[in-house]
Protein backbone atom coordinates (compact mmCIF):
# COMPACT_ATOMS: atom_id res chain seq x y z
CA UNK A 1 0.00 0.00 0.00
CA UNK A 2 1.13 3.51 -0.79
CA UNK A 3 0.61 6.49 1.42
CA UNK A 4 -1.73 7.84 -1.23
CA UNK A 5 -4.07 4.90 -0.54
CA UNK A 6 -4.82 6.35 2.90
CA UNK A 7 -7.23 9.17 3.65
CA UNK A 8 -6.69 11.04 6.88
CA UNK A 9 -9.52 13.00 8.46
CA UNK A 10 -8.30 16.14 10.26
CA UNK A 11 -10.62 18.18 12.50
CA UNK A 12 -9.45 21.44 14.01
CA UNK A 13 -11.15 24.80 14.52
CA UNK A 14 -7.89 26.71 14.16
CA UNK A 15 -7.82 27.28 10.38
CA UNK A 16 -4.04 27.69 10.35
CA UNK A 17 -3.30 24.54 12.26
CA UNK A 18 -5.72 22.74 9.98
CA UNK A 19 -4.10 24.16 6.85
CA UNK A 20 -0.62 23.27 8.03
CA UNK A 21 -1.47 19.78 9.19
CA UNK A 22 -3.24 19.00 5.94
CA UNK A 23 -0.40 20.55 3.95
CA UNK A 24 2.20 18.48 5.77
CA UNK A 25 0.23 15.26 5.47
CA UNK A 26 -0.32 15.78 1.75
CA UNK A 27 3.32 16.65 1.34
CA UNK A 28 4.12 13.33 2.99
CA UNK A 29 1.86 11.65 0.42
CA UNK A 30 -1.45 11.02 2.18
CA UNK A 31 -4.91 12.00 1.04
CA UNK A 32 -6.73 14.22 3.50
CA UNK A 33 -10.14 15.49 4.50
CA UNK A 34 -10.22 18.70 6.49
CA UNK A 35 -13.10 19.82 8.70
CA UNK A 36 -13.34 22.76 11.07
CA UNK A 37 -15.73 21.51 13.72
CA UNK A 38 -16.92 18.55 15.71
CA UNK A 39 -20.26 18.71 13.92
CA UNK A 40 -18.64 18.52 10.50
CA UNK A 41 -16.40 15.68 11.64
CA UNK A 42 -19.42 13.76 12.86
CA UNK A 43 -21.20 14.14 9.58
CA UNK A 44 -18.12 12.95 7.70
CA UNK A 45 -17.76 9.93 9.97
CA UNK A 46 -21.40 9.06 9.41
CA UNK A 47 -20.90 8.47 5.70
CA UNK A 48 -17.22 7.84 5.24
CA UNK A 49 -14.57 5.64 6.80
CA UNK A 50 -11.20 7.38 6.91
CA UNK A 51 -7.97 5.43 7.29
CA UNK A 52 -6.96 7.53 10.28
CA UNK A 53 -8.25 10.59 12.10
CA UNK A 54 -6.58 13.50 13.86
CA UNK A 55 -8.86 15.42 16.23
CA UNK A 56 -8.28 18.65 18.06
CA UNK A 57 -9.46 18.46 21.67
CA UNK A 58 -11.24 21.76 22.11
CA UNK A 59 -13.58 22.82 19.36
CA UNK A 60 -17.23 23.74 19.87
CA UNK A 61 -17.02 22.32 23.33
CA UNK A 62 -14.08 21.68 25.60
CA UNK A 63 -14.26 17.96 25.09
CA UNK A 64 -15.10 17.78 21.38
CA UNK A 65 -12.01 15.67 20.73
CA UNK A 66 -12.92 13.09 23.34
CA UNK A 67 -16.43 12.83 21.99
CA UNK A 68 -15.14 12.39 18.45
CA UNK A 69 -12.69 9.71 19.55
CA UNK A 70 -15.49 7.93 21.30
CA UNK A 71 -17.87 8.08 18.36
CA UNK A 72 -15.16 7.14 15.92
CA UNK A 73 -14.14 4.08 17.88
CA UNK A 74 -17.71 2.98 18.24
CA UNK A 75 -18.31 3.16 14.53
CA UNK A 76 -14.88 2.08 13.27
CA UNK A 77 -12.99 0.27 16.04
CA UNK A 78 -10.11 -0.46 13.66
CA UNK A 79 -9.41 3.13 12.57
CA UNK A 80 -6.52 4.71 14.48
CA UNK A 81 -7.25 8.06 16.12
CA UNK A 82 -4.81 10.77 17.15
CA UNK A 83 -5.88 13.37 19.68
CA UNK A 84 -3.98 16.62 19.23
CA UNK A 85 -4.04 19.57 21.57
CA UNK A 86 -1.98 22.45 22.83
CA UNK A 87 -3.97 22.85 25.95
CA UNK A 88 -2.93 20.19 28.41
CA UNK A 89 -0.06 22.02 30.03
CA UNK A 90 -2.03 25.14 30.70
CA UNK A 91 -5.03 23.52 32.25
CA UNK A 92 -3.13 20.99 34.29
CA UNK A 93 -5.37 18.39 32.75
CA UNK A 94 -2.62 16.29 31.37
CA UNK A 95 -3.57 13.16 29.60
CA UNK A 96 -1.44 10.58 28.04
CA UNK A 97 -2.47 7.24 26.80
CA UNK A 98 0.64 5.35 27.71
CA UNK A 99 -0.88 3.50 30.60
CA UNK A 100 -3.50 0.81 30.22
CA UNK A 101 -5.63 2.70 32.67
CA UNK A 102 -5.86 5.80 30.50
CA UNK A 103 -6.39 3.83 27.34
CA UNK A 104 -9.54 2.47 28.86
CA UNK A 105 -11.30 5.79 28.79
CA UNK A 106 -9.51 7.93 26.25
CA UNK A 107 -10.49 6.30 23.02
CA UNK A 108 -7.48 7.50 21.10
CA UNK A 109 -4.46 5.57 19.94
CA UNK A 110 -2.06 8.43 20.22
CA UNK A 111 -2.02 11.68 22.04
CA UNK A 112 0.07 14.47 20.56
CA UNK A 113 1.03 17.92 21.69
CA UNK A 114 0.46 20.47 18.98
CA UNK A 115 3.48 21.99 17.36
CA UNK A 116 5.21 18.72 16.55
CA UNK A 117 7.39 18.68 13.49
CA UNK A 118 6.01 17.44 10.18
CA UNK A 119 8.47 14.50 10.02
CA UNK A 120 7.47 13.41 13.49
CA UNK A 121 3.79 13.56 12.60
CA UNK A 122 4.48 11.49 9.49
CA UNK A 123 6.29 8.90 11.58
CA UNK A 124 3.49 8.64 14.10
CA UNK A 125 0.96 8.26 11.32
CA UNK A 126 3.08 5.61 9.58
CA UNK A 127 3.37 3.71 12.83
CA UNK A 128 -0.38 3.74 13.37
CA UNK A 129 -1.07 2.73 9.78
CA UNK A 130 1.59 0.03 10.10
CA UNK A 131 3.54 1.32 7.12
Amino acid at each position, binding site marked *: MNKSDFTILVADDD*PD*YLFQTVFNLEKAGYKTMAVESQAEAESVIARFKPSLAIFDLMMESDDSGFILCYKMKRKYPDVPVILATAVSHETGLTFSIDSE*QDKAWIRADKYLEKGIRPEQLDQEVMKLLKL
Partner: protein
Amino acid sequence: MAVLRVLVIDDEPGIRSGVSRILNNFHVTYPFMDEDYTFEVIEAATGEDGIEILERDMPDILLLDNKLPGIQGVDVLEYIRKRNYDIVVAMITSYASLDVAIRATRDGAIDFIPKPFTPQELKSSIENITKQQYLKRITHKLKQEGKKIRYQFLSVLSHELKAPLNALEGYLRMMQGKQAGELIDDYATPIERSLQRIQGMRNLIMDLLDFTKIRLEKKEEKIQEVNLAEVASSSIVTVQPYAIQMDVNINLDVRSDVVIMADPDDMEIVFNNLISNAVKYNKIGGKAEITIDSSETEAILIISDTGIGITKDDTENLFAEFVRIKNEKTRNISGSGLGLSIVKKVVELYHGTIKVDSTPDVGTVFTIRLPKKPLTST
Protein backbone atom coordinates in the same frame (compact mmCIF):
# COMPACT_ATOMS: atom_id res chain seq x y z
CA MET B 1 -13.54 11.38 49.16
CA ALA B 2 -16.53 12.08 46.93
CA VAL B 3 -19.51 9.81 46.67
CA LEU B 4 -21.30 9.07 43.44
CA ARG B 5 -24.79 7.73 43.70
CA VAL B 6 -25.53 4.77 41.50
CA LEU B 7 -29.11 3.81 40.83
CA VAL B 8 -29.58 0.28 39.59
CA ILE B 9 -32.92 -0.50 37.97
CA ASP B 10 -33.29 -4.23 37.44
CA ASP B 11 -36.10 -6.65 38.26
CA GLU B 12 -33.69 -9.41 39.26
CA PRO B 13 -32.86 -9.08 42.97
CA GLY B 14 -29.62 -11.00 42.42
CA ILE B 15 -28.31 -8.41 39.98
CA ARG B 16 -29.20 -5.53 42.29
CA SER B 17 -27.56 -7.02 45.35
CA GLY B 18 -24.59 -8.05 43.22
CA VAL B 19 -24.09 -4.47 42.05
CA SER B 20 -24.44 -3.19 45.61
CA ARG B 21 -21.94 -5.69 46.93
CA ILE B 22 -19.36 -5.01 44.25
CA LEU B 23 -19.60 -1.23 44.24
CA ASN B 24 -19.84 -0.66 47.96
CA ASN B 25 -16.18 -1.57 48.35
CA PHE B 26 -15.01 0.00 45.15
CA HIS B 27 -13.29 3.29 44.61
CA VAL B 28 -12.02 5.04 41.51
CA THR B 29 -9.00 7.22 41.48
CA TYR B 30 -7.25 9.04 38.73
CA PRO B 31 -4.07 11.14 38.70
CA PHE B 32 -5.77 14.42 37.91
CA MET B 33 -8.76 13.93 40.15
CA ASP B 34 -8.58 15.80 43.42
CA GLU B 35 -10.18 13.00 45.31
CA ASP B 36 -11.22 9.39 45.10
CA TYR B 37 -14.72 8.46 44.16
CA THR B 38 -16.71 5.90 46.09
CA PHE B 39 -20.17 4.65 45.33
CA GLU B 40 -23.49 4.45 47.05
CA VAL B 41 -25.93 2.09 45.43
CA ILE B 42 -29.68 2.66 45.38
CA GLU B 43 -31.86 -0.17 44.10
CA ALA B 44 -35.13 -0.17 42.18
CA ALA B 45 -37.01 -3.19 40.86
CA THR B 46 -39.13 -1.36 38.30
CA GLY B 47 -38.83 1.58 35.94
CA GLU B 48 -41.64 3.34 37.80
CA ASP B 49 -39.82 3.07 41.13
CA GLY B 50 -36.61 4.11 39.41
CA ILE B 51 -38.13 7.33 38.09
CA GLU B 52 -39.37 8.17 41.56
CA ILE B 53 -35.85 7.73 42.91
CA LEU B 54 -34.41 9.75 40.02
CA GLU B 55 -36.63 12.65 40.98
CA ARG B 56 -35.91 12.38 44.67
CA ASP B 57 -32.24 11.43 44.97
CA MET B 58 -30.73 12.74 41.72
CA PRO B 59 -28.23 9.90 41.29
CA ASP B 60 -25.10 10.43 39.19
CA ILE B 61 -24.99 7.11 37.41
CA LEU B 62 -27.78 4.83 36.27
CA LEU B 63 -27.38 1.15 35.53
CA LEU B 64 -30.48 0.25 33.61
CA ASP B 65 -31.94 -3.07 32.58
CA ASN B 66 -34.08 -2.83 29.49
CA LYS B 67 -36.50 -5.68 30.13
CA LEU B 68 -38.57 -4.58 33.07
CA PRO B 69 -42.01 -5.63 34.31
CA GLY B 70 -43.76 -2.29 33.64
CA ILE B 71 -42.28 0.47 31.56
CA GLN B 72 -39.14 -0.54 29.71
CA GLY B 73 -35.58 0.65 30.13
CA VAL B 74 -35.68 2.69 26.95
CA ASP B 75 -38.74 4.52 28.31
CA VAL B 76 -36.78 5.48 31.40
CA LEU B 77 -33.99 6.72 29.13
CA GLU B 78 -36.38 8.83 27.15
CA TYR B 79 -37.77 10.30 30.37
CA ILE B 80 -34.23 11.26 31.44
CA ARG B 81 -33.37 12.73 28.09
CA LYS B 82 -36.48 14.89 28.01
CA ARG B 83 -35.70 16.32 31.44
CA ASN B 84 -32.05 16.84 30.64
CA TYR B 85 -30.79 15.20 33.82
CA ASP B 86 -27.07 15.25 34.44
CA ILE B 87 -26.70 11.51 34.71
CA VAL B 88 -24.68 8.87 32.92
CA VAL B 89 -26.57 5.79 31.84
CA ALA B 90 -25.24 2.33 31.11
CA MET B 91 -27.56 -0.42 29.97
CA ILE B 92 -27.23 -3.79 31.65
CA THR B 93 -28.73 -6.33 29.42
CA SER B 94 -28.47 -10.01 28.70
CA TYR B 95 -29.18 -9.64 25.06
CA ALA B 96 -29.10 -6.26 23.42
CA SER B 97 -31.17 -6.41 20.32
CA LEU B 98 -29.85 -4.08 17.68
CA ASP B 99 -33.05 -2.11 17.78
CA VAL B 100 -32.86 -1.50 21.51
CA ALA B 101 -29.14 -0.74 21.34
CA ILE B 102 -29.67 1.90 18.67
CA ARG B 103 -32.53 3.52 20.50
CA ALA B 104 -30.69 3.45 23.83
CA THR B 105 -27.58 4.96 22.32
CA ARG B 106 -29.59 7.66 20.63
CA ASP B 107 -31.28 8.49 23.93
CA GLY B 108 -27.98 8.85 25.70
CA ALA B 109 -26.86 5.49 27.06
CA ILE B 110 -23.09 5.54 26.90
CA ASP B 111 -22.21 1.98 27.75
CA PHE B 112 -23.55 -1.56 27.62
CA ILE B 113 -22.75 -4.02 30.35
CA PRO B 114 -23.48 -7.60 29.31
CA LYS B 115 -25.44 -9.71 31.74
CA PRO B 116 -24.24 -11.79 33.54
CA PHE B 117 -21.15 -9.78 34.34
CA THR B 118 -18.13 -10.47 36.46
CA PRO B 119 -17.24 -8.04 39.26
CA GLN B 120 -14.29 -6.94 37.14
CA GLU B 121 -16.47 -6.14 34.13
CA LEU B 122 -18.80 -4.04 36.24
CA LYS B 123 -15.90 -2.25 37.90
CA SER B 124 -14.18 -1.36 34.65
CA SER B 125 -17.42 -0.02 33.17
CA ILE B 126 -18.07 2.05 36.28
CA GLU B 127 -14.51 3.31 36.16
CA ASN B 128 -14.94 4.56 32.59
CA ILE B 129 -18.25 6.15 33.36
CA THR B 130 -16.85 7.89 36.42
CA LYS B 131 -13.99 9.37 34.48
CA GLN B 132 -16.22 10.62 31.74
CA GLN B 133 -18.60 12.11 34.26
CA TYR B 134 -15.75 13.75 36.12
CA LEU B 135 -14.29 15.21 32.98
CA LYS B 136 -17.64 16.47 31.83
CA ARG B 137 -18.20 18.14 35.15
CA ILE B 138 -14.79 19.70 35.44
CA THR B 139 -14.92 21.22 31.97
CA HIS B 140 -18.40 22.46 32.74
CA LYS B 141 -17.29 23.85 36.08
CA LEU B 142 -14.28 25.57 34.58
CA LYS B 143 -16.57 27.21 32.09
CA GLN B 144 -19.04 28.35 34.72
CA GLU B 145 -16.50 29.61 37.18
CA GLY B 146 -14.06 30.80 34.58
CA LYS B 147 -14.39 34.36 35.71
CA LYS B 148 -13.49 33.58 39.28
CA ILE B 149 -10.57 31.31 38.72
CA ARG B 150 -7.42 33.18 37.96
CA TYR B 151 -5.66 29.99 37.16
CA GLN B 152 -8.16 29.20 34.50
CA PHE B 153 -7.83 32.71 33.13
CA LEU B 154 -4.10 32.30 32.80
CA SER B 155 -4.39 28.90 31.24
CA VAL B 156 -6.84 30.04 28.60
CA LEU B 157 -4.75 33.12 28.08
CA SER B 158 -1.65 31.10 27.44
CA HIS B 159 -3.64 28.97 25.03
CA GLU B 160 -4.85 32.07 23.22
CA LEU B 161 -1.32 33.40 23.03
CA LYS B 162 0.25 30.11 22.06
CA ALA B 163 -2.15 29.27 19.29
CA PRO B 164 -1.07 32.18 17.04
CA LEU B 165 2.58 31.47 17.81
CA ASN B 166 2.13 27.86 16.78
CA ALA B 167 0.50 29.03 13.57
CA LEU B 168 3.33 31.45 12.82
CA GLU B 169 5.96 28.88 13.61
CA GLY B 170 4.30 26.38 11.32
CA TYR B 171 4.20 28.83 8.44
CA LEU B 172 7.80 29.92 8.96
CA ARG B 173 8.98 26.32 8.98
CA MET B 174 7.05 25.75 5.79
CA MET B 175 8.94 28.65 4.22
CA GLN B 176 12.26 27.64 5.71
CA GLY B 177 11.94 24.21 4.13
CA LYS B 178 10.66 25.76 0.90
CA GLN B 179 7.89 23.23 1.11
CA ALA B 180 5.37 25.00 -1.06
CA GLY B 181 7.81 26.01 -3.78
CA GLU B 182 10.83 28.16 -4.59
CA LEU B 183 9.03 31.44 -5.17
CA ILE B 184 7.92 33.93 -2.57
CA ASP B 185 4.55 34.03 -4.37
CA ASP B 186 4.04 30.40 -3.48
CA TYR B 187 3.68 31.54 0.11
CA ALA B 188 1.06 34.26 -0.35
CA THR B 189 -1.52 32.53 1.86
CA PRO B 190 0.87 31.64 4.69
CA ILE B 191 2.14 35.23 4.72
CA GLU B 192 -1.35 36.71 4.70
CA ARG B 193 -2.47 34.36 7.45
CA SER B 194 0.63 35.10 9.54
CA LEU B 195 -0.08 38.80 9.33
CA GLN B 196 -3.65 38.19 10.39
CA ARG B 197 -2.57 36.12 13.37
CA ILE B 198 -0.13 38.83 14.38
CA GLN B 199 -2.91 41.38 14.19
CA GLY B 200 -5.10 39.14 16.32
CA MET B 201 -2.37 38.80 18.87
CA ARG B 202 -1.79 42.54 18.93
CA ASN B 203 -5.49 43.09 19.59
CA LEU B 204 -5.36 40.55 22.37
CA ILE B 205 -2.42 42.31 23.98
CA MET B 206 -4.17 45.69 23.73
CA ASP B 207 -7.27 44.20 25.31
CA LEU B 208 -5.20 42.66 28.05
CA LEU B 209 -3.65 46.02 28.80
CA ASP B 210 -7.14 47.50 29.07
CA PHE B 211 -8.10 44.62 31.21
CA THR B 212 -5.32 45.15 33.75
CA LYS B 213 -5.90 48.88 33.72
CA ILE B 214 -9.47 48.66 34.87
CA ARG B 215 -8.56 46.18 37.55
CA LEU B 216 -6.42 48.77 39.23
CA GLU B 217 -8.01 50.93 41.85
CA LYS B 218 -9.38 54.17 40.58
CA LYS B 219 -7.25 57.17 41.40
CA GLU B 220 -9.31 60.17 42.41
CA GLU B 221 -7.34 62.57 40.24
CA LYS B 222 -8.29 60.66 37.10
CA ILE B 223 -11.99 61.14 37.75
CA GLN B 224 -13.32 64.16 35.93
CA GLU B 225 -16.34 65.45 34.11
CA VAL B 226 -16.76 63.43 30.94
CA ASN B 227 -19.10 64.39 28.15
CA LEU B 228 -20.25 61.04 26.80
CA ALA B 229 -21.22 62.42 23.39
CA GLU B 230 -17.67 63.64 22.90
CA VAL B 231 -16.19 60.27 23.81
CA ALA B 232 -18.63 58.56 21.46
CA SER B 233 -17.69 60.90 18.60
CA SER B 234 -14.01 60.23 19.06
CA SER B 235 -14.62 56.45 19.15
CA ILE B 236 -16.58 56.72 15.93
CA VAL B 237 -13.61 58.45 14.31
CA THR B 238 -11.37 55.59 15.46
CA VAL B 239 -13.66 52.92 14.06
CA GLN B 240 -14.57 54.79 10.87
CA PRO B 241 -11.88 53.32 8.58
CA TYR B 242 -13.10 49.84 9.39
CA ALA B 243 -16.72 50.95 8.97
CA ILE B 244 -15.92 52.28 5.49
CA GLN B 245 -14.40 48.94 4.57
CA MET B 246 -17.52 47.14 5.76
CA ASP B 247 -19.79 49.80 4.25
CA VAL B 248 -21.45 50.24 7.64
CA ASN B 249 -23.08 53.56 8.38
CA ILE B 250 -22.53 54.80 11.96
CA ASN B 251 -25.03 57.29 13.30
CA LEU B 252 -24.79 59.17 16.60
CA ASP B 253 -28.01 60.42 18.16
CA VAL B 254 -27.42 62.68 21.16
CA ARG B 255 -30.75 63.16 22.90
CA SER B 256 -29.20 64.54 26.04
CA ASP B 257 -25.78 66.02 26.57
CA VAL B 258 -24.91 63.85 29.53
CA VAL B 259 -21.88 64.61 31.63
CA ILE B 260 -20.80 62.04 34.19
CA MET B 261 -17.91 61.82 36.64
CA ALA B 262 -15.56 59.17 35.35
CA ASP B 263 -12.10 58.33 34.09
CA PRO B 264 -12.27 59.30 30.40
CA ASP B 265 -10.07 56.31 29.48
CA ASP B 266 -12.69 53.98 30.88
CA MET B 267 -15.48 55.54 28.87
CA GLU B 268 -13.34 55.31 25.80
CA ILE B 269 -12.84 51.59 26.40
CA VAL B 270 -16.61 51.10 26.60
CA PHE B 271 -17.40 53.01 23.42
CA ASN B 272 -14.47 51.67 21.42
CA ASN B 273 -15.38 48.09 22.17
CA LEU B 274 -19.10 48.37 21.59
CA ILE B 275 -18.90 50.52 18.47
CA SER B 276 -16.20 48.38 16.89
CA ASN B 277 -18.28 45.27 17.67
CA ALA B 278 -21.32 46.94 16.09
CA VAL B 279 -19.28 47.31 12.91
CA LYS B 280 -17.37 44.03 13.10
CA TYR B 281 -20.42 41.81 13.57
CA ASN B 282 -22.53 43.76 11.10
CA LYS B 283 -23.49 42.96 7.55
CA ILE B 284 -21.97 44.69 4.56
CA GLY B 285 -24.05 47.83 4.06
CA GLY B 286 -25.53 47.65 7.58
CA LYS B 287 -26.14 50.33 10.18
CA ALA B 288 -24.81 51.06 13.65
CA GLU B 289 -26.77 53.46 15.81
CA ILE B 290 -25.41 55.07 18.97
CA THR B 291 -27.92 56.83 21.18
CA ILE B 292 -26.99 58.87 24.22
CA ASP B 293 -29.82 59.74 26.55
CA SER B 294 -30.38 60.28 30.23
CA SER B 295 -32.93 59.86 32.95
CA GLU B 296 -32.97 61.84 36.16
CA THR B 297 -30.24 59.76 37.76
CA GLU B 298 -28.64 57.81 34.94
CA ALA B 299 -26.85 58.19 31.67
CA ILE B 300 -28.24 55.78 29.10
CA LEU B 301 -26.14 54.54 26.18
CA ILE B 302 -27.71 52.42 23.50
CA ILE B 303 -25.57 50.83 20.82
CA SER B 304 -27.51 48.91 18.22
CA ASP B 305 -26.52 47.23 14.99
CA THR B 306 -28.14 45.44 12.07
CA GLY B 307 -25.69 42.57 12.20
CA ILE B 308 -25.57 38.82 12.56
CA GLY B 309 -27.07 38.80 16.07
CA ILE B 310 -26.60 36.35 18.89
CA THR B 311 -28.77 33.40 19.90
CA LYS B 312 -30.39 33.33 23.31
CA ASP B 313 -28.11 30.54 24.51
CA ASP B 314 -25.02 32.44 23.47
CA THR B 315 -26.02 35.66 25.21
CA GLU B 316 -25.75 33.91 28.58
CA ASN B 317 -21.99 33.59 28.44
CA LEU B 318 -21.41 36.64 26.32
CA PHE B 319 -19.71 38.71 28.99
CA ALA B 320 -17.36 36.02 30.28
CA GLU B 321 -13.68 36.25 29.57
CA PHE B 322 -12.42 34.64 26.38
CA VAL B 323 -15.90 33.74 25.27
CA ARG B 324 -16.21 33.98 21.53
CA ILE B 325 -19.35 32.89 19.85
CA LYS B 326 -18.21 30.23 17.43
CA ASN B 327 -20.37 29.62 14.41
CA GLU B 328 -20.39 29.85 10.64
CA LYS B 329 -21.05 33.57 10.73
CA THR B 330 -18.25 34.49 13.12
CA ARG B 331 -15.66 32.14 11.68
CA ASN B 332 -13.78 34.78 9.76
CA ILE B 333 -14.09 37.53 12.33
CA SER B 334 -11.14 37.82 14.64
CA GLY B 335 -11.39 38.86 18.25
CA SER B 336 -9.69 38.30 21.57
CA GLY B 337 -12.83 37.26 23.41
CA LEU B 338 -12.06 39.89 26.02
CA GLY B 339 -13.82 43.00 24.72
CA LEU B 340 -17.23 42.52 26.27
CA SER B 341 -15.89 41.22 29.56
CA ILE B 342 -13.82 44.39 29.77
CA VAL B 343 -16.85 46.56 29.02
CA LYS B 344 -18.84 44.79 31.69
CA LYS B 345 -16.06 45.24 34.26
CA VAL B 346 -15.88 48.96 33.55
CA VAL B 347 -19.64 49.37 33.75
CA GLU B 348 -19.74 47.52 37.05
CA LEU B 349 -16.89 49.58 38.40
CA TYR B 350 -19.17 52.60 37.95
CA HIS B 351 -22.08 50.74 39.53
CA GLY B 352 -23.89 50.65 36.21
CA THR B 353 -25.64 47.89 34.31
CA ILE B 354 -25.33 46.46 30.83
CA LYS B 355 -27.87 44.35 29.04
CA VAL B 356 -28.11 42.83 25.61
CA ASP B 357 -31.07 42.12 23.37
CA SER B 358 -30.44 40.30 20.16
CA THR B 359 -32.17 38.56 17.32
CA PRO B 360 -30.06 36.37 15.04
CA ASP B 361 -29.73 37.86 11.55
CA VAL B 362 -31.58 41.02 12.62
CA GLY B 363 -29.22 42.72 15.01
CA THR B 364 -28.09 43.37 18.55
CA VAL B 365 -28.80 46.15 21.03
CA PHE B 366 -26.59 46.85 24.02
CA THR B 367 -28.04 49.14 26.68
CA ILE B 368 -25.81 50.60 29.35
CA ARG B 369 -27.01 52.61 32.32
CA LEU B 370 -24.47 54.54 34.37
CA PRO B 371 -25.30 56.54 37.50
CA LYS B 372 -24.65 60.25 37.00
CA LYS B 373 -23.52 60.85 40.53
CA PRO B 374 -19.79 60.76 41.24
CA LEU B 375 -18.14 57.53 42.23
CA THR B 376 -18.41 56.98 45.92
CA SER B 377 -16.15 54.00 46.27
CA THR B 378 -12.66 53.90 44.88
